[in-house]
Structures are given as structure tokens and as C-alpha cells.
């Protein structure tokens, strides 16, 4: 009936228009600074009659006599209603749309909230900022862009970044955020690295095609993430996919990019001294000797001496300045996506196909990805709409070994002796066996013969039903799934010297890994929004059910029979392992917002979880949050001026958590594998027998989740015509009941008990600043900067536990120590006397301490990202400067480069006498002997830099990672509409971009300090034989049809 009335009403209006007399109005539309606005829409209010302004902002419109108001609008400007009674000529000024006033934010579970009423900050990164500089892994696009988020890449190939939001929220587990795509969590496993075996994997967010992403919203604090309950502690990254728009014509969007990948930095080498070491010479001198199986370059001065090389060939001694750089090549990246989208009155669609291929600077590292996505939304009736999103991808990669193992191609390559022709030397002997002078794998042999490849087939997506009961109440049901099957295959050729994939002890091996993940998730929400006079109410009630299931099946076969036969059937000894995991969580939640006159709002949230991983008695866990915000410029309009445009303050408090993993509540007997730390191991079945041992980690029937409680205050201020926008937040958060395997004396019979014991306190400041210094007709300059500073301090470990070693070696390692910042670096130091003077032995050399001490803190003081955007006509130039201050790392590469005498500084002072072999004693350590007397013993370069000198203590290679780098830069040009209008294309954009274009590291020579041997884990600060960091340069193109 109502429909009929509307129809009748419409008809009546139509006739009224026809009957009315009309007049003509002309006008000009400009912005605040008088610049004409073309293509603005001018509509007669209440009708569909209207026109658009021309290039000079002028328009002419015939209006009926009874028309009273025009509605003028344009993209990026606030719409304006203009009274026209009695006027025929109008000068209309539009103001830039105040984004902060009207922005609608999708918070948790698809809830839409007016940003103004939010009591917490929710930074969002738009598609264009994610894809202007191409990254195959979307986590890398977050780097430097969001205040409060610290990101760091582990280096190497196609790996993602470690994303740390507002500090550490877990003692020994991951603090990585939860990734949610269109409301449904997606698995982000992987990204870790085994220290001494295997390759680095990509974190699984790599499966998302960045071109399918419309925006990423970062929920940082506990008040923002409380509704995610026991998964919200590390923050949440909400990814919204691109969708078709209603009432839009069918369009095709094609994006394509190509880039090259280069080594970001290569060490500066000396090319004066040959491979070798010191030997006893005449008259008590040490002489430099050319030793052909030495891994060092402490040999004689190179001047064309004749010698017989390792292969029996007569040759002359010479330097090979490029013997390291020649190992690397240029990598390439290609990304193409074609998307079809459109929409009718009721139905929208988007279908896309994306294709990515990337290679790395070390040959045989390659990533391939194919994505197909489908987004469909349809209003079935006025009340019911359904939608679906499906992503299918196939991602495969091949990789070389990483980490501190002899099969890592760069384990030795960085410091290959200066006189060794790595590229030109054979690496097979006549019998086809590996040939290399050292005990490691030859880098080239390793690349060819130690292989790894993996492939994933993954489907994730959701099905969505929305029902609108009334204008103020609707319900939303979403069921999502994330399925994948992952397969990895490793091959180690017979004669391998390092650990490789299978730790085969030289016999060669094959490994097959099958990992299946099936995560199901559904949520149901009821959403109500209503205004009662000055009060507005928005409320949501919901529940969520999560069912995650996975298994991993690994078979490792070692001792191969036939060389080169890459098949499990070639192995003679097999070790199968199988592990599975199943967890379920049920949650109910509520979110309630009350606002007064749209300027004051109060938000309470709560969630209750029941998790299967908790013992039955502790299963129910409650997570509350509250937030208050006030837009003071609206509460007191007198505050508002030309200088101060907008002022909002907020405060919030919340509590979130993280549940324990499965199967930690009971004691188990597990299959045994006696081993020492050096490789020897016994595996079962042993002589057809099985061997079990009681797990060294005892179960705990009293577990509960760990909680992160946080309060935050913040303000948003806009000045001078919104040309200066400041967002500032201060927060304090505290992890309590921190879960970890609390280590205990092994003499108790166990080595750890999983417990709620630790506490971490984080205090942080985050600032966002946007300034538009220049805003002219044809030139616009915008600076947007973000500043992140937080300090996570371990305030409590378990009773009786003073330290937890998280990862690493006897020295150095990464530890949690009560009273210290999270994850400090421990290692041995140089021995010192009571006055802190370095103790030297009679030979003038330093001595290492037997015990380990804190030698570094890997946490930076602050990080900053500054993006400068320049717009000139159709050109836009973005430059992202990434700044990091502080943060130590133990650099094994640096240690190796120096102790082996290959880098420039080791030849700074002449090493040898004129004869080219007698060592000169040009160096001296400053220190004292045990009785406090200065030791003045000159030493030679090898003693100073070599194994007995600086290298004796880990302390000597703790380096600050502070950097300033041009992280991203891109220049793109959008062809003007006047041109594209004449073509079938809607939009043509092309650009050039670069990543890591410039890196300045005042304290860190030779290499890029953005490295971490432990991958994208919490544990930062150790670099061991890291792969090369890269720089990319590329071009991209975007066309719509």
C-alpha cells in the first residue's frame, strides 16, 4: 500500500513539474580559495532534475517556478543546499568535506559506527596506499603507515613483516594481530624460521591479493578489540575486500605492475689480502700464509703469486672483487589483476583474477600466486539481502635454505675469501660429488642440490544474510570458512654437508609435509539504531562460534641410494610424524552506544567466551570495555574558529585476552627422540621398537587465558581550515596472567609447566599528523606523519623464575628478564675489572666472560613514518620515509665479515710488512691486566679482528639498527578526464615506484639491519647469516573500462 502511495506521489510531482512555469538560473561553483569546481552536481531539491558544472565551474539550469532550493555536491566537498528564491545568478562556494565529521567506520563484526562517536582510534589504509608500491605480501604494506604499529621484515624472500600493535601481549607466544577478512578471521600461520634447518616460510596472509583489498582498518587497543575476546589481545586487522557498487555500469579494472628486485646493500670489501691465516714465521714473527682451505682472508698481500689451486690447476693469486655480488642476480616481480564489477539496483558483483610472480636475488627462489575472487551481494527483498565472498588461491614457492646452517647459500658467501673465485670455481668433482674447500656446502651446489618447494590451495570466504526488521533493527548472519591444504617438499642431495631440509648427516634426504587447515566461523548479530530526541542509541547483540581444525603430516626419509633421484622411495630410513589440533570457542557479545546530541558518546562492550582449550571450571571468560568521547567543538560552538576547526577527546578502558593452545591441561607421554644440541639423535622406531617418554612439559588443569587490560586517552584536533590534523593517543596496557611454559629445574623431572604467571606493562604514545603546507589550484603538498613509541617491560615472571630464554644460542640469546624490556639480548661480554676497564691477557687480547649478561635491547626507542604527497595536475608523488631510532641486534654477518678479514676496515691499517707476509702490529686493545696495570701490547690485524680478538664476546657485535630509509616512493600520473572521455577507458593511471630506495644506517655498516633470524616472531635482535635485503623498482598501470 505504501509503495502505491509513493508511486502516486511521484506521479503527482512529475505532473506538477510539467505544469509549473520555469526560469533559468546561472551560477559558478568554486572552492574556499576561489578555484572553480568542475563536474559538480546541481540538483533541484526533491527532484531528479539537475545538471553539472563545466570545467570553469559554471552551470546553467532551468528550474520550475516553485523550486526553492538547489543541492550542490561534488566529490571531496561537503554538499550544500542553496536557496534560490528570487535569484537568477548564484556564486556558490563549497567547502572541503570534513572527513572526520562523516566517516563511517566498520568496527567489529561488520558493525558500522560513525567515527565521531568512537571512543578509540581506528586508522584505515585505503587501497591506493596499499598498492601504489607493490608488495606480494600485504603485511609489508603496513610498514611506516600506522601510528602505534611497529613492523619489521625478517629479510630474505617473500616473507612478511612482523606486525606488533602497541607492544607485546604474550610472554613467549606470538603477539601478532588477528586478521579478519570481511568479518571472518583468516589463518596467518607460518612466517617462522627454524634456526638451524630448513627455509623461511611466508606468513599465510601472503595468500591475499592486495588488489582485492579495498581497505585495511587497524583496531589497536583493548577497547577497540574487546569484542574479539580471547583473540583480541594482539589487535585486529580488518580487511575489507573490493565490491561492486549499486547502480554502476559494468566496468573492468585492470592493474599490472612489473618490478625488479635488487640486493639493497653489499659489504665494502678489501681486495688487497688473500685467503689464509697466520703461521709461525721466523724470529718469533707471525707470517701470513696462503692457506687454501682457510675460510679467512688473513693471507699474504695479493700480487700475482703463482700457486696450484684446490683443483690442481696452476694459477696466480688475485682478488675477485665481485665474488660475492656475482652470487646474486636481479629478481623480478609481476603482478596482474583483472576485476569485473558492476551493480544493478539490487545486485552488485565483483569477480577478479590475480596473478603474481616474484623471484628473489638468489636464484631458484620464486613465489607464484593465482587468486580468483568473487563478491556477490543482492537484495532479495526490501528486507532481506544476501552476499557472499569467496577467495580461491593457489600459491607456490621454491626457496633456498636460511639461517645458521651450512646449507644456507649465504652462510659462507658473505665472507668468501677475497682471492677465491666462487663463481668461476667448479663445485663438482670428476665423480659428480660436491667439491668445496671448506666444510660447508658450496653456495652454488646448495642452490642446485638442496631444494625446497611448497604449494597451497586455499579457499576462504563467507556467506552473509542480512535482514532488516524495521528501519532501526536488523540482523546479520555470517558463516565463514578458511580451508587450505599445504604441501611442502624438500630434497637434500647425497653429500650435503649442512642440515638442509632433513638433517640427513650427509646421506641426503627427502621430506614431504602435508598440512591441512579447516577453520569454520559463524556469527550472528542483532543491530539496533534509534534516536530519542537528543539521544541516539546504537546497540548490537551477537554470538560467535569458532571451530578450528588442522593436522600436519610429515614424512622424512634419509640416506638416499641414487644420486639426484628426488623421491621418497629413494630413502632407506623414514620418520613419520603426525600432529593435529582442534579448538572450539563460543562467544556472546554486546556493544551499546549512547550519544547525546551527536557530540558526546558513551560506549560499553562486553564479550563472554567459552573455550575448549580451557579446563572446564575456567571455561567461561568475560571481557568488558568502555569508551567515552566528546566532540568539544560541537558541544561548545564558541570554541570553533578559523583556527580550531575540530576538537574531539576520548578515553577508554578495556580488557581482552588470548586463550591457551590446545592440549595443555593434561600430562602426556610423547614419542621420544634422545638428542644433544649437535645433531646426533635417535629416532623411533629403533630396531622395530617404539620409545616413549613423559613430556618434559607438564599439563596444568588450572589454566585460564592471559589478559591484556588497557586504558587510553586521546584527542583529534583540526586546525586552520583542516590543513593541520593531529591525532594523539596515550595508553597504558598490562598483560596479566601471561601464559607461558614456566621453566623449572629439570631435576624436578620436568622442565616446564604451562602457567598463567607473567606480566608485561606497556606504555605508549602514538601521534598522527597531517599537514597541508601548500594547497594551490595545480599544486598540492601534503605531509602525513605517524610516530610510534612504546615500551613493553616485563614486570613479573613466575615465582622463583628470574629469566626465560626465548630463543638463540648459549651466547647470544633472547631473554625475558623481570624488570627489563621485552626480549633483551644476552651474551657473553669482555671481562672487566671493578673500574669497568677491559681485562687483557699477556698477549694483549680480551677475555670473554664465562657467563652471559644483558648486552643489548632490540626494541627501538621510536619509529616514524613520514609520507610526503605532492600533486601537480594529474601527477602525484608519494615518498614514505621510514625512521627508526635505536634497537640493537647481534649481527653474526658483521662478525663474520670482520673476523675473516674481508671487509674494508680490516685492512684500514697496513696488515703486513713490505715483504707481503710478515704481520705488522698496528693494533692494540685498550685495557688492563689483572692487577690493573695498562697492557701495552701491540697486536696484528688478525689478532684484533679475528677469532681471538673482538669476536671472543658477543658484546663486540651488538649494533644499533637505527635507520632512515626511503621505504616507499611512487610517482603516478592520471590521464585527465578530458582525454579519457574520448576513449573507451574510464581511468588510465600509470606510475613508477620503488621500495627501500635509500637506506641510511649510521651505526650499521655493510648490510641492511632489517633482519631477524627468527622470522616474523616476537623474538627480535639476532641476525645469523641473514639473506640479502632487497630494494625494488617498478612500474605499474591501472586501467578501467
Amino acid at each position, binding site marked *: 500500500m505504501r509503495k502505491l502511495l509513493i508511486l502516486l506521489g511521484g506521479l503527482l510531482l512529475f505532473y506538477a513539474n510539467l505544469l509549473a512555469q520555469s526560469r533559468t538560473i546561472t551560477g559558478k561553483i568554486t572552492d574556499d580559495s576561489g578555484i572553480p569546481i568542475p563536474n559538480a552536481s546541481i540538483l533541484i531539491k526533491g527532484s531528479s532534475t539537475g545538471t553539472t558544472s563545466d570545467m570553469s565551474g559554471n552551470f546553467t539550469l532551468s528550474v520550475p517556478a516553485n523550486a526553492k532550493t538547489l543541492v550542490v555536491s561534488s566529490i571531496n566537498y561537503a554538499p550544500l543546499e542553496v536557496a534560490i528564491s528570487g535569484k537568477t545568478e548564484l556564486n556558490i562556494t563549497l567547502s572541503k568535506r570534513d572527513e572526520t565529521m562523516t566517516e563511517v567506520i566498520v568496527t567489529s563484526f561488520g558493525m558500522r559506527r560513525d567515527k565521531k562517536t568512537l571512543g578509540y582510534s581506528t586508522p584505515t589504509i585505503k587501497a591506493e596506499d596499499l598498492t601504489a608500491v607493490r608488495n606480494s605480501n600485504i603485511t609489508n604494506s603496513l610498514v611506516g603507515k600506522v601510528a602505534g604499529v611497529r613492523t619489521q621484515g625478517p629479510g630474505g624472500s617473500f616473507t612478511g613483516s612482523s606486525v606488533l600493535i602497541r607492544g607485546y601481549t604474550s610472554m613467549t607466544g606470538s603477539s601478532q594481530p588477528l586478521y579478519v577478512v570481511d568479518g571472518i578471521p583468516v589463518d596467518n600461520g607460518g612466517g617462522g624460521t627454524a634456526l638451524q634447518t630448513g627455509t623461511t616460510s611466508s606468513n599465510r596472509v601472503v595468500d591475499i591479493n592486495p588488489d582485492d583489498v579495498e581497505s585495511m582498518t587497524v583496531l589497536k587497543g583493548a577497547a577497540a578489540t574487546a569484542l574479539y575476546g580471547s583473540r583480541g589481545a594482539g589487535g585486529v586487522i580488518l580487511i575489507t575486500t573490493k565490491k561492486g557498487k549499486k547502480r554502476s555500469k559494468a566496468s573492468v579494472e585492470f592493474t599490472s605492475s612489473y618490478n625488479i628486485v635488487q640486493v639493497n646493500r653489499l659489504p665494502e670489501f678489501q681486495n688487497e689480502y688473500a685467503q689464509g691465516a697466520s703461521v709461525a714465521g721466523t724470529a718469533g714473527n707471525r707470517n701470513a700464509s696462503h692457506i687454501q682451505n682457510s675460510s679467512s682472508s688473513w693471507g699474504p698481500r695479493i700480487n700475482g703469486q703463482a700457486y696450484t689451486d684446490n683443483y690442481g690447476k696452476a694459477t696466480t693469486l688475485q682478488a675477485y672483487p665481485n665474488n660475492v655480488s656475482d652470487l646474486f642476480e636481479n629478481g623480478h616481480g609481476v603482478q596482474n589483476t583483472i576485476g569485473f564489477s558492476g551493480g544493478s539496483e539490487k545486485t552488485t558483483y565483483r569477480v577478479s583474477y590475480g596473478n603474481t610472480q616474484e623471484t628473489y636475488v638468489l636464484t631458484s627462489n620464486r613465489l607464484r600466486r593465482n587468486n580468483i575472487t568473487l563478491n556477490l551481494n543482492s537484495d532479495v527483498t526490501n528486507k532481506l539481502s544476501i552476499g557472499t565472498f569467496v577467495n580461491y588461491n593457489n600459491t607456490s614457492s621454491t626457496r633456498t635454505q636460511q639461517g645458521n646452517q651450512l646449507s644456507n647459500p649465504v652462510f659462507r658467501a658473505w665472507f668468501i675469501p677475497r682471492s677465491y673465485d666462487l663463481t668461476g670455481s667448479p663445485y663438482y668433482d670428476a665423480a659428480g660429488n660436491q667439491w668445496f674447500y671448506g666444510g660447508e656446502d658450496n653456495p652454488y651446489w646448495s642452490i642446485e642440490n638442496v631444494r625446497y618447494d611448497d604449494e597451497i590451495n586455499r579457499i576462504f570466504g563467507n556467506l552473509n544474510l542480512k535482514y532488516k526488521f524495521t528501519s532501526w533493527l536488523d540482523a546479520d548472519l555470517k558463516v565463514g570458512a578458511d580451508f587450505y591444504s599445504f604441501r611442502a617438499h624438500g630434497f637434500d642431495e647425497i653429500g650435503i654437508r649442512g642440515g638442509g631440509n632433513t638433517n640427513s648427516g650427509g646421506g641426503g634426504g627427502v621430506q614431504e609435509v602435508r598440512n591441512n587447515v579447516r577453520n569454520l566461523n559463524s556469527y550472528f548479530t542483532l543491530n539496533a539504531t534509534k534516536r530519542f530526541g537528543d539521544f541516539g542509541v546504537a546497540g548490537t547483540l551477537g554470538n560467535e562460534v569458532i571451530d578450528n581444525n588442522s593436522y600436519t603430516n610429515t614424512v622424512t626419509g634419509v640416506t638416499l641410494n641414487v644420486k639426484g633421484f628426488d623421491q621418497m622411495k629413494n630413502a632407506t630410513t623414514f620418520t613419520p610424524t603426525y600432529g593435529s589440533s582442534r579448538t572450539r570457542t563460543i562467544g556472546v557479545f554486546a556493544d551499546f552506544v549512547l550519544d547525546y546530541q551527536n557530540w558526546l558518546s558513551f560506549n560499553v562492550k562486553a564479550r563472554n567466551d567459552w573455550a575448549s582449550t580451557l579446563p572446564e571450571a575456567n571455561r567461561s571468560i568475560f571481557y568488558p570495555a568502555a569508551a567515552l568521547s566528546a566532540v568539544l567543538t560541537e558541544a561548545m560552538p564558541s570554541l570553533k574558529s578559523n583556527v580550531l576547526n575540530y576538537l574531539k577527546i576520548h578515553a577508554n578502558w578495556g580488557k581482552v585476552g588470548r586463550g591457551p593452545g590446545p592440549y595443555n591441561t593434561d600430562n602426556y607421554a*610423547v614419542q621420544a627422540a634422545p638428542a644433544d644440541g649437535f645433531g646426533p639423535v635417535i629416532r623411533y622406531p629403533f630396531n622395530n621398537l617404539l620409545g616413549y617418554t613423559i613430556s618434559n612439559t607438564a599439563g596444568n588443569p588450572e589454566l585460564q587465558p592471559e589478559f591484556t587490560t588497557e586504558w587510553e586517552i586521546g584527542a583529534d584536533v583540526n586546525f586552520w581550515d583542516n590543513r593541520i590534523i593531529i591525532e594523539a593517543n596515550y595508553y597504558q596496557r598490562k598483560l596479566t596472567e601471561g601464559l607461558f611454559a614456566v621453566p623449572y629445574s629439570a631435576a624436578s623431572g620436568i622442565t616446564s609447566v604451562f602457567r598463567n604467571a607473567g606480566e608485561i606493562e606497556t606504555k605508549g604514545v602514538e601521534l598522527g599528523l597531517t599537514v597541508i603546507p601548500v594547497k594551490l589550484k595545480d599544486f598540492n603538498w601534503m605531509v602525513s606523519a605517524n610516530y610510534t613509541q612504546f615500551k613493553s617491560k616485563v614486570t613479573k615472571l613466575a615465582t622463583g623464575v628470574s629469566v626465560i630464554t626465548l630463543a638463540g644460542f648459549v651466547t647470544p640469546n633472547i631473554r625475558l628478564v623481570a624488570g627489563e624490556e621485552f626480549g633483551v639480548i644476552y651474551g657473553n661480554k669482555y671481562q672487566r675489572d671493578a673500574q669497568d676497564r677491559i681485562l687483557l691477557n699477556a698477549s694483549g687480547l680480551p677475555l670473554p666472560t664465562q657467563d652471559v649478561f644483558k648486552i643489548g635491547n632490540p626494541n627501538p626507542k621510536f619509529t616514524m613514518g613520514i609520507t610526503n604527497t605532492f600533486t601537480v595536475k594529474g601527477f602525484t608523488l608519494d615518498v614514505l620515509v621510514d625512521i627508526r631510532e635505536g634497537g640493537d641486534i647481534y649481527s653474526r654477518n658483521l662478525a663474520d665479515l670482520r673476523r675473516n678479514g674481508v671487509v674494508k676496515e680490516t685492512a684500514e691499517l697496513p696488515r703486513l710488512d713490505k715483504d707481503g707476509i710478515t704481520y705488522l702490529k698496528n693494533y692494540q686493545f685498550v685495557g688492563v691486566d689483572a692487577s690493573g696495570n695498562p697492557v701495552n701490547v701491540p697486536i696484528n690485524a688478525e689478532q684484533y679482528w679475528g677469532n681471538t680478538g673482538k669476536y671472543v664476546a658477543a658484546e663486540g657485535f651488538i649494533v644499533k639498527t637505527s635507520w632512515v630509509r626511503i621505504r616507499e616512493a611512487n610517482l603516478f600520473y592520471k590521464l585527465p578526464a578530458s582525454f579519457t572521455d574520448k576513449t573507451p577507458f574510464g581511468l588510465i593511471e600509470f606510475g613508477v615506484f620503488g621500495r627501500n630506495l635509500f637506506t641510511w644506517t649510521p651505526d650499521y655498516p655493510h648490510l641492511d639491519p632489517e633482519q631477524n633470524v627468527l622470522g616474523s616472531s616476537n623474538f627480535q635482535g639476532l641476525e645469523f647469516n641473514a639473506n640479502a635485503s632487497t630494494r625494488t623498482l617498478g612500474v605499474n598501470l591501472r586501467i578501467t573500462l
Partner: protein
Amino acid sequence: MKNIIKFILILLLVGSLPSCKKYLDINKDPDNILEDEVPINLLLTNVTTSTGFIGGSDLFRYGALLTQQFSGQTTGGETQTQAYEKYLIQSADVNNAWVLYNASNLNDIEVIIKRSAEQGAPHYSGVAKILKAYTYQLMVDAWGDVPYSEAQQTTANLFPKYDKGADVYNEIIKLLNEGIAECNAATSSLSPGSNSTIYTGTFSTKKANWIKFANTLKLRVYLHYSKLDKPFMVNQITTLVNSGAPFFAANADNFEMPFFNAANRQNPIHQFELTRTNYLFANKFLVDMMNLKLDPRRQFYFTQFPGGSGAYVGAKAADPVSQKYSRMHVYLRGAVVNAGPPKADGSYDPTGTNSISYTGDAPIRMFTYSEYNFIRAEAALNGAPGDPQIFFQEGIRASMLGAGVSAADITTYLAANGTLAGTDADKLKQIIEEKYVALYGTIEEPWTDWRRTGFPAIVKVSNAVLSDIPRSLPYAQSEMDLNPNAPPQKSSILEKVFWDK
């Protein structure tokens, strides 16, 4: 509207629905066995295997490097074996061994003892107690004071106190007596059989081996008092011998663990040579000692250097980077599979073309019949029953037979070196030096002999970081960090264990 309210109510109640409990009761790991349900025979298999593994692992390497049976080497940076050899053994270095002994072996032994009592299986308990005694003997000799009375109580006592080494030694004898009695039990619901990887076989036959081992182990324990309280040592051994207790009587009685020619099932000393290439070479001290006597065991102990020359060359601490030395050979690595040619410089690689490859199935010899004879020889020299000369020769003969030496070579060697002569001190030196050679590859005992007797007369290495040769191991760093009831860390590893004072 009524329906909506009803739905909300259901939604809120979902957590307390009865089906919910069942839905969430899935937290039992399907891939492992609950502790209370694991069969004890599976635990014993790993206890015996792990005991054998330990025999060729960390503590073996420390002892063998400290007593100069092996020497560390390198091709690049300093290796851990070089660090140990110059006495740089740090508290964190022993963490792994400490965990393996305590949390794996002893804890599993404790569970076996407890569960076999519940199940009426004294044979399991007997074997477990004998293995427990052996493990504590190794631990006291290495560390001195160790947790015993409060150890292995898991969550009931997470900070066990340390007991005096002397007290633990007393407990070892008690454990052995209990173990022997339980092995002799007439009935047992379960008995170790083929699931024990040491003395594998029907328990009715193999129990004799366990009992012989337990008694011979008592001899070893008593002998360790030689420096602290010689009369006590002589007395105890005399009493034990006169009691008619059965001891090892042939090499077949050796307490050793067989390994197999399959990756990850091989002798751990051999595995170390594969995974840590160029970390260990034969030590000059041992090689020279054997060269001097033209010891026929060299061909089984060491590879030749230069390859094929019939000569043997040992390395020593602080030697310059080189691989031009003899390596360990068939006695520790099993039979030769393929002998590649040596490199041009006469040396062998541990793996690859220019290496000798091995089956890796040599046993780990933890306590041999040969050692038994040397114990008896030393005891007899001090007044215990028997003729030292006979035991001395039998010790050498057993060792040579075990290595594969021909009867003729044994006769020749004994003719030249088989007679004890001179003062008692000279004779002791002869006994311990021969024992030192015979115990090549045996965990800890040569180090213990040197600490007790000062023989063989090894000299502090030239690059030592300590003023003398170490006499114990540091307490594990994990104990210092985690156990408030642990004693303070030793001032240095020159500190002595109780019987060394």
C-alpha cells in the same frame, strides 16, 4: 517483536546449554598418550636407548677432550670442541645433558618404578633401579652434589634441594641392592624382554646380565673411594668379592648399547663425526702413547695419517687449522663400507669422496669386562683379593679382543707390555694407562681415573683458560636460573667432587 526477544534470550543462553559442554570437551590430544595410560615397556625402551645415547653424547665429549683422548679442530671459527678442550666449558653448555639425565631418563625411571609397583612388576622396577644407580654415578662424578632425595617429584617439588655427592653414593649402593633383589623376584606381572635395548632378550636369561652389571657397578663405585678413603675401598671390594657376587666374566657381559646401520639409529659418536665434520680428531697424547708401544688397537681406533702409510698422528690443543691427523675409526664407527682415497695431503674427510664411510653400528661401551679387570687389578694391588698381574693382563686381552685384535698380536703386545713392574705407584700407573687406552670411547671413567690417580700424566693444554685441568663440570645454567635451592655456581670447574679430595 516477541519472537525477537525470544531469539535474543536463546542467544544469550547459548553458553550454558547442556550440549555446549560436550561441544567444548575436545581438549584431549588425540596424537599422544596420556601419562597414566602409557605402557611402561615403551618407557623402558627409551630409558635404555637414551642411556646408550648419553654414553656417546655431551659428557662423553667433555671427558674425552679433558683427558686428551680427542682433540678439537676447526676449519673456520673456533668450534665448541676446541673451547671445551681449552677448558672453556660454560654453565649453559651442560644444560642439554642436565635435562636429558634428569627430566627424561630419571623421570621416566621414576614413573616405571612407581607404576611397576602398582602393577606388580618387580622385574621392571629392578632394571629401572639399576639404571637409576648408574645414571646417578655418572652425575655425581661429573657435578659432585646433585638433587636426589627431592628430585623427580614433578609439580610436587619444583625446586629440589641438592644432596651431598657422598650421600648419593650411599643411595647408589642401596638402589643396586634393591635392583638385584627385584630382578631376582620369582614372579613379575611383566618383565623386560626384547623391549630393553640393553641386554635384549628373555628376562629369565638376561636377568643374570643385569645382576652382574649391578655388582660390577658396585665395584666401580667403591673404587672411586681410592683417594678419599683407601681402606674403605679395599674393605668394600673385599667384602663384595668374598660374598660370591657374580661379576662380568666375559666381553659378552659388557654393559653396552648396540646401534644400527640406519640414519638416526647410529652410534652417537659416529653421528657427531657426520654432523660436526672436523670437530674431533684423535689426540696426540693418546696416539703417541699407543705409537710408543706399537699398540695393535690403533688400526681399529684410528685412521692412518697419511692415509695408507700405516702411521698414526694425533692433534693437540692450539694446533693451527689443519685436518692432517688421524680420525676415529671402526672401533667407534662400525665396519668400513667404502674406503675412499685420502686427499693429496694424506688426510681424510669425515664424509664425502675422500672419506672412509662406516656402518655406524658400533656399540656405545659404557662399562666393559676389560674395565672390570682393571678395577680388580687396582683393588688387588691395594690388598683386595686376587692377583693384580692376572687381572691386568685379562683387562688388556679383553680390550684387544673387543677391538678385534688377533691372538698373535695380543700375545706380542702382552709379552712387551703385560707385566706389572716396579713400585706400587709404577704398577698403578701401568694399570691406569692401559685402562685409559682400553676405555677409549667410554663416558667419563678415564677422567675419573685421572682425577683419582693422576694417571695418565696428562699436562694442562697450552691454551688453557684455567690454571689447571678441570675436575668437575659447572652446574647447569638452567639450575642457576631456575632452582633457588641449587648451591651457588662453582667458583671454577677446578672444584673437586667428594671422592677427589
